């Protein structure tokens, strides 16, 4: 019979006057299951533990302080898994009125554990998982690029999947960034080209993640690479093809405000700097094929499927903006001069459709501009209910850009609450806006009307004075809130991660695991899990990279205790699937399977199984029932 040893810790002799250790030792020694009882002084000291010369095959009961302190010593350092912890310090010595009570409680608790420990299985060899030390980053915006660069710089290979032909995301489309009014592409461009040059980063443009199998350390990811019709290996970005292309299409990069050829490169700083063909517009005339000296163009190009084997995944796909057509009172799409803030960014940008001059659609210069805040955010209804984080600062920045271009212009900002909370937002943005004479009106305008001369009239009630008013302007800019992109739910389903009630990706824990998802090894960064600005997206990119790197630095992955299904007992009734709130149990053909990367080890499945076919660590009826009898026995 295997030995059971009880270790009683006196906590540096401080428990001697609280618990009668001799009595406890005598009582326990009487039990046939116990082969050794040791009273020791300080189990938290590794020297004390070493002197006990414990063997991994021994069954051990540790009666000491809170197991939170000692579990690590016994389970990791000594790799003893047949160990039970009883807290005789906090729960007996310190909680009982007198020595007699404390000793009695100690004996009872230990009697339970003695009964339990014999029913704990043999020491399990840890099933450590291997790690594929390569990462996948989905999305090439600022969060994804920052993340990929950080992982690559630590020496690991990164696959960077981007749905568009170029990296850059929303930040590449912006004119300036707040609060410093730095040129956006001037600060993102170097990062993009660094990403392009980095030998550890494999950029996969025009592609989407289709499905994911496997678990942390060993994911198999299927990626669909959409045809670019131009061989990226051969294309050197000379642009001869676009010179001869006879067809124009609206450029998505310029929010469809500026035409490009059907064979195009989205913008000058694009990474990779390769041309692609938009087949929706291409007439297949073949002129580009004749013009290309490197025979890079293949109009018969087909989608390709790519399987990647990675150890960790970072989701940084970003979000969409609210569709302003859902607010008919602002007549977006109907009145020419009602524009979105993204359109404004392109118009005010020197590389934009008007070369940076703020013009009305009829070509007249815009002298009076109004911003309407919180379009699609902070309201119930079509938008999302929370604050969209970036728009107060963005509109103040845009207002200052207007004045930089034209000192005579008049700018009005219709706000609800002005939230200037970030670093430099108050002094560099808000104060200077006030000094520059930008007019802030606290109101959510009820309607935009159009006068006969094409000017727009904003109908509003100033909620500070209670007065109603009408304001005539040339251009109205709608500050749109974030909304989860349409494809996000599909991607989340493919990855097995969850989305919250607004449709953004849900974190494993909003406070303490803000970048982890419910699937171990899948992390999230940037606006795909809620509204954020550039700074925070970049911070999260780096932070997610740090999580990936620390995963890769480990020798193997130790999963926490997860539920296991005993196949010989399981009848496939599926009750455990209904009980699991994490969605970690699935039906796989005829079998029921636990997804170890999702299971959190709560055991709701264990107690719901009528066949006792689900087990989790040492907490089955088989172990707990004898423990209870032991405690209650005389």
């Amino acid at each position: 019979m295997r030995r059971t040893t009880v270790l009683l810790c006196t906590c540096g002799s401080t428990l001697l006057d609280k618990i009668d250790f001799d009595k406890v030792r005598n009582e326990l020694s009487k039990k046939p299951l116990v082969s050794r009882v040791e009273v020791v002084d300080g189990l938290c000291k590794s020297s004390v533990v070493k002197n006990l010369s414990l063997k991994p095959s021994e069954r051990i009961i540790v009666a000491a302080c809170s197991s939170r302190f000692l579990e690590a010593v016994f389970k990791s350092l000594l790799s003893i898994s047949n160990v039970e912890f009883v807290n005789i310090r906090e729960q007996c010595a310190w909680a009982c009125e007198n020595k007699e009570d404390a000793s009695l409680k100690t004996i009872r608790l230990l009697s339970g554990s003695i009964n339990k420990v014999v029913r704990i299985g043999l020491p399990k060899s840890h099933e450590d998982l291997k790690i594929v030390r390569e990462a996948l980053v989905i999305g090439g915006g600022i969060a994804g690029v920052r993340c990929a660069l950080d992982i690559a710089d630590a020496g690991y290979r990164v696959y960077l999947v981007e749905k568009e032909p170029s990296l850059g995301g929303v930040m590449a489309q912006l004119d300036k960034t707040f609060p410093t009014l730095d040129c956006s592409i001037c600060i993102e461009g170097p990062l993009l080209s660094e990403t392009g040059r980095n030998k550890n980063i494999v950029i996969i443009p025009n592609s989407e993640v289709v499905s994911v199998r496997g678990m942390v350390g060993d994911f198999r990811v299927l990626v669909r690479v959409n045809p670019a019709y131009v061989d990226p290996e051969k294309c050197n970005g000379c642009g001869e093809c676009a010179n001869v292309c006879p067809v124009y299409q609206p450029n998505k990069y310029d929010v469809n405000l500026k035409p490009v050829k059907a064979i195009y490169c989205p913008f000058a700083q694009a990474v990779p700097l390769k041309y692609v063909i938009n087949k929706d517009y291409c007439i297949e005339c073949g002129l580009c094929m004749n013009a290309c000296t490197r025979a890079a163009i293949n109009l018969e190009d087909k989608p390709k499927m790519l399987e990647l084997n990675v150890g960790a995944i970072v989701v940084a796909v970003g979000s969409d903006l609210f569709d302003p057509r859902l607010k008919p009172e602002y007549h977006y799409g109907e009145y020419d001069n009602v524009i979105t803030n993204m359109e404004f960014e392109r118009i005010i940008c020197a590389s934009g459709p008007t070369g940076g001059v703020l013009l009305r659609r009829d070509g007249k210069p815009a002298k009076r501009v109004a911003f309407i805040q919180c379009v699609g955010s902070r309201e119930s209804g079509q938008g999302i209910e929370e604050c969209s984080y970036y728009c107060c600062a963005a509109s103040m920045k845009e207002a200052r850009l207007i004045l930089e271009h034209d000192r005579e212009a008049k700018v009005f900002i219709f706000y609800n609450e002005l939230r200037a909370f970030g670093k430099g937002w108050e002094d560099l943005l808000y104060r200077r806006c006030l000094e520059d004479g930008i007019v802030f009106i606290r109101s959510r305008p009820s309607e935009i009307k159009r006068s006969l001369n094409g000017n727009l009239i904003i109908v509003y009630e100033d909620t500070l004075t209670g007065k109603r008013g009408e304001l005539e302007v040339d251009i109205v800019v709608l500050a749109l809130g974030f909304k989860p992109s349409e494809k996000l739910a599909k991607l989340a389903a493919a990855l097995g991660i969850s989305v919250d009630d607004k449709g953004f990706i849900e974190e494993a824990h909003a406070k303490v695991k803000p970048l982890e998802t419910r699937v171990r090894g899948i992390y999230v960064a940037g606006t795909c899990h809620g509204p954020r600005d550039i700074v925070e997206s970049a911070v999260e990119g780096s932070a997610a990279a740090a999580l990936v790197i620390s995963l890769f630095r480990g020798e193997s992955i130790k999963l926490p205790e997860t539920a296991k299904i005993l196949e010989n007992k399981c009848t496939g009734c599926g009750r455990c699937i209904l009980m699991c709130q994490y969605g970690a149990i699935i039906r796989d053909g005829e079998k029921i399977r636990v997804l170890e990367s999702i299971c959190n080890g709560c055991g709701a499945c264990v107690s719901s199984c009528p066949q006792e076919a689900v087990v989790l660590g040492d907490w089955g009826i088989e172990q707990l029932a004898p423990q209870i009898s032991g405690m209650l026995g005389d």
Partner: protein
Amino acid sequence: MVVWKPKIIAFTCWCSSSGVDQAGFEGFKYPANVLTVRVPCSAIVNPSLVVKALQEGADAVLLTACKPVELRKIAPSRITEARVSLLRRLLNTVGVEEDRVRILWISSNEGGIFASEVSRIVEEVEKLGPLNLRGKMIEQP
């Protein structure tokens, strides 16, 4: 004279065990006849174990768990809450006072609440008297 004292089994989840430890740490005293069984989460406790404890001589059984509002969508202790309320009704029908099985919401920093609640419950169980479920079962014809 031997004074009868009730025996109470308390299934404590990971988080609330830490609350129970905190009670001792902060010097709160509570009756010694509350014996804890540590489990990873209250949802792992099969109702049959609660009945087993009563059969084996416990006069009451407590389950300490995390308040569901503290968690978000995911709250396995809601399962426990549903099971306990069902079990209480069931026990009532066979003549066991429902207050002998209870759920206590204890977070890991609520040691004080644990100590005071447990002391109150012990007093109430003392008023109910011994359960002696096994004896009752044998008496049945």
